[in-house]
């Protein structure tokens, strides 16, 4: 932490290399690491890299920290009522606890203030270039990276800086995924993706069709039940709706008591089904479809209120949409309904618009990266993706350990190249590994991990890396 290791802000004139045959000046940032994005994962990357002695330049396209969790940001998907769905111990950074007088499931504004405090506490803002977007990241000789940046919105000149390593932390919940429906163009009603849903006033007094049974879809369906004149909730299949509390404790803490005791998945699934049958009961009597899978095989939906409003008739469960007409929506069971507003909570797709898809192992153009530990790309030992996980708990502890592992790997590259080489082999061998029980194969579950399975894998990777 001594100032001599701190390279400070990049100075464009310091050392400019002119690549042969190309007039673009590149400023060489030496051993500095580039972090893309100052959301939760980017912040913890900056903090952990600094802690391991690295200089860091972090680029953030917005003018504040917090990424998706900062509702002021263009790309933020949060809406006024967003609360966490994993309780505090699973959501906080492992070395920076949230205040213990906060509720079990904090509100998104509390989460933003938590990140602001994290950034101030560890003095991270001095390493962040706000209002700067990354438009290109290219590998160059010696496992180094040329990063092209410019002011957000395309103003000003482009600047190229050369870094020893790159952490990609640009988030994966900002590029909306809109499924194709027949006749959607001719539909006269209002259409909206959940990413632009901000406030329940947008639903007030309207006939609303909610499409999608993710956590967002269910949250908005509940708000529609309270605000709209009518709410249909269209889901492709039956799901398990997990309550936020069971046995008087946050449900994820109960589940982890069992994980800590090493209770096998099958037994936990059985206990879970049994608990739900005792408390919520059979959901098919409300017209909800029966789940076609066991619990923990799709991303968990944590919502205590959805079933409540279905039971009050405020939400009408309906099957998938077959096609749209000008003034009606046809469902797969042949029924027709007449919503004024259709909200698609159909999720997001990852996007790395600044990176050649092949770098992340996406060779077939599907947009799906193929990585080890959802973080490391084969053939690129100085590249890591942080936070590209969708765990059955909070993401932030996972991002924390990903970036700790990466920082230790970078440190070992200098001290013990043999260890780093062994790690690279491990990456190549383990590409595409899954860290969860069997999950439904859809783009929704590309990054699905069980937090316990995943963190155990990170623990093994760390132990192998540091073995004496």
């Amino acid at each position: 932490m001594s100032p001599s290791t701190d390279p400070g802000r990049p100075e464009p004139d310091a050392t400019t290399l002119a690549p042969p045959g190309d007039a673009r000046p590149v400023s060489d940032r030496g051993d500095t690491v580039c972090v893309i994005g100052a959301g939760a994962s980017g912040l913890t990357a900056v903090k952990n890299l600094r802690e391991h002695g690295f200089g860091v330049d972090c680029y953030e396209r917005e003018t504040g920290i917090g990424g998706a969790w900062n509702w002021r940001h263009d790309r933020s998907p949060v809406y006024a009522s967003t609360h966490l769905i994993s309780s505090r111990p699973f959501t906080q950074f492992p070395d920076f606890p949230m205040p213990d007088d906060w509720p079990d499931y904090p509100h998104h504004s509390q989460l933003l203030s938590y990140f602001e405090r994290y950034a101030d506490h560890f003095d991270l803002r001095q390493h962040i270039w706000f209002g700067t977007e990354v438009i290109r990241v290219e590998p160059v000789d010696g496992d180094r990276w040329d990063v092209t940046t410019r002011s957000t919105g395309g103003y000003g000149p482009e600047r190229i800086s050369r870094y020893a390593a790159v952490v990609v932390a640009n988030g994966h919940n900002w590029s909306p995924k809109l499924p194709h429906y027949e006749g959607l163009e001719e539909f006269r009603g209002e259409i909206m993706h959940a990413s632009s849903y901000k406030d329940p006033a947008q639903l007030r007094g309207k006939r609303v069709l909610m499409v999608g049974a993710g956590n967002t879809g269910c949250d908005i369906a509940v708000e529609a039940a309270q605000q709209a004149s009518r709410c249909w909730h269209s889901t492709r299949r039956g799901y398990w709706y997990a309550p936020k509390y069971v046995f008087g404790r946050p449900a994820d803490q109960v589940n982890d008591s069992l994980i800590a005791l090493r209770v096998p998945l099958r037994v936990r699934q059985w206990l879970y089904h049994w608990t739900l049958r005792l408390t919520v009961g059979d959901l098919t009597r409300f017209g909800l479809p029966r789940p076609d899978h066991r619990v923990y095989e799709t991303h968990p939906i944590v919502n205590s209120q959805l079933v409540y409003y279905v039971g009050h008739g405020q939400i009408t469960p309906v099957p998938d949409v077959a096609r749209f007409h000008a003034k009606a929506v046809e469902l797969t069971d042949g029924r027709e309904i007449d919503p004024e507003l259709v909200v698609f909570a159909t999720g997001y797709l990852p996007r790395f618009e600044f990176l050649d898809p092949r770098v992340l192992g996406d060779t077939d153009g599907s947009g799906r990266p193929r990585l080890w530990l959802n973080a490391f790309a084969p053939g690129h030992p100085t590249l890591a993706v942080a936070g590209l996980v969708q765990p059955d708990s909070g993401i932030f502890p996972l991002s924390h350990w990903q970036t700790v592992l990466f920082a230790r790997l970078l440190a070992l590259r200098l001290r013990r190249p043999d260890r780093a080489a062994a790690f690279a082999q491990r990456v190549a061998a383990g590409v595409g590994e899954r860290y969860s029980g069997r999950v439904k194969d859809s783009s929704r579950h590309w990054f699905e991990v069980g937090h316990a399975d995943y963190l155990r894998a990170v623990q093994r990777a760390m132990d192998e890396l540091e073995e004496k």
Partner: protein
Amino acid sequence: MSQQQRVRIMRGREWARPVRPARREVLSALPEVERGRPPLLFVPGFGHGAWAFAEHWLSHAAGRGFPAYALSLRGHGGSEPAPEATLRAYAHDVTQVAAGLPRQAVLVGHGAGALVVRHALARYPARAAVLVAPVLGDWATLGTALRRNPGGTLPALVGGGLRLSRRQLFSRELPDAEARRYAARLGRAGRRAQWQLLTHHDPEPAVGDPPVLVLGSPDDRVVPPATLTRAARRHGGAPLLFPGMGHDLMLDARWQEPIDAILDWLEKEHP
């Protein structure tokens, strides 16, 4: 910290059973001008509260430009009573207060508070740590306590409260009236936490590997000099010694010498 031990990522029990929140007393003294120095968080040992540091050290540190805070562990001083507190709950109190400070803090633990600090270091990346007359829970310390203060120590072994006598804590230089006044303010740690002094697991590695300073007195009647040396060697150094002082270096007659040594060391570590 002993780096042989590995970082433990899976913390199932801590996630599943978070420590119950408790109201905590935090006293502070802030410098008049912010000079960019790291905040200090003083953690008192068993039986003591934040008051022990508020007496001299907080204002002295603030006078030298360091924002200084002291907390009372649950069940001590002005914090909420907690007879069933464990070492983990105490470490939780420390990380909670530390993470609530505006900047990355230096943790200063005294007596058994030093053991609490060592456990807290595994859950909070402190900028540095100072262990003052550390009671790290070894048998030598128990032996010394039994020899010097059998009446106060024996009941603790059978589940009673540990009582410290003023002759263990202070040198003869401290006026008797003051020594009595301080001794009268002493409380007791939780029964389970007291047992954990002997039965606890070794602390996990400290996050971020902060520099650690150990100091104490060769004439301490609670911590034998060999324990001091061992504690300092664990962190790759030798202890700073203040002969002639008792266990409570922050309350004894010559309280200014150790705190000045701590602040000098910090200025050198973080200029």
